[in-house]
């Protein structure tokens, strides 16, 4: 079965996030003056072929740990997968 996953990668708390800062700094010019703590991360969507959801999820976690994120500076979250396609 094919399972679709989404992985969110974000900078660890407390680390410098120059991209988030730049976005935050640009908001007052758009009229948003009450926004703070802006952070920019990465969103990855992928399909995995596996016998069942737990096995697919295990693979995705390994992919996220070894390649999609850098454990030195980033955390990741594997979001809920969607139901298998085609209802097979």
């Amino acid at each position, binding site marked *: 079965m094919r399972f679709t996953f989404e992985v969110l990668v974000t900078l660890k708390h407390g*680390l*410098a996030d*120059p991209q988030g800062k730049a976005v935050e700094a640009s908001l007052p010019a758009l009229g948003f003056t009450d926004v703070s703590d802006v952070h920019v991360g990465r969103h990855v969507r992928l399909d995995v072929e596996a016998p069942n959801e737990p096995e697919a999820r295990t693979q995705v976690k390994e992919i996220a740990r070894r*390649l999609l994120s850098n454990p030195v500076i980033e955390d990741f979250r594997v979001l809920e997968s969607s139901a298998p396609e085609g209802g097979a």
Partner: protein
Amino acid sequence: MTVGTPRVGVITFPGSLDDGDALRAIEIMGGEGVALWHADHDLQGVDAVILPGGFSYGDYLRCGAIAGHAPILDDVRVFADRGGPVLGICNGFQILCEAGLLPGALIRNASLRFICRDVFLRVETSQTPVTGELVPGEVIEIPVKHGEGQYIATSEQLRAIEDEGLVVFRYADRTGVVGEGSNPNGSLDAIAGVRNEAGNVVGLMPHPEHAVDPDVGPTGGQPLFAALLASALAGARA
């Protein structure tokens, strides 16, 4: 066979830019440059390895992330574990961090701007294959050119890096004083380069390979290459 001339390999990844300059710097300084390919499992028996600057895989995902899993990195890891000298420059530094061969990580410059200019570096240790001809406190001038050179680590990692003396170079002014004004990218503790615990793997953001020819700028890269060739030769004879 190495007979007096150390052989230094330079790995080309898809998107490497400074492999040519690194090979040229090796030759200018009296070594033999050996072109290596990222997809090969073959270091061709070289005495030292350089991972050059550039934008491997277009910096996709994170700088150096995909190259950090290239086939030849397995061989670099074995070579490094045996004590072989390994130098990562700019993107090569990012690749070594991503591969876990060096501590820390490199992110977007604090200014969000790409920086291309000559900087001064204060040498922090002689105990590496590239600083053996320098003394701590000495200042060298070489260029930086990067958009993602801000060195960061978690506070525990940073403490370990400092406590174990793993910092090799810090951004400084021409007199060797470290301060905010001389830190081009916001790196923690003004760190420009680090080494591994064994001391044989070194990475730095500035470009010593662009600073060996007096006709085109500062020559602060010369002592680094001279030391690298000397340690490569020592390794070859061992």
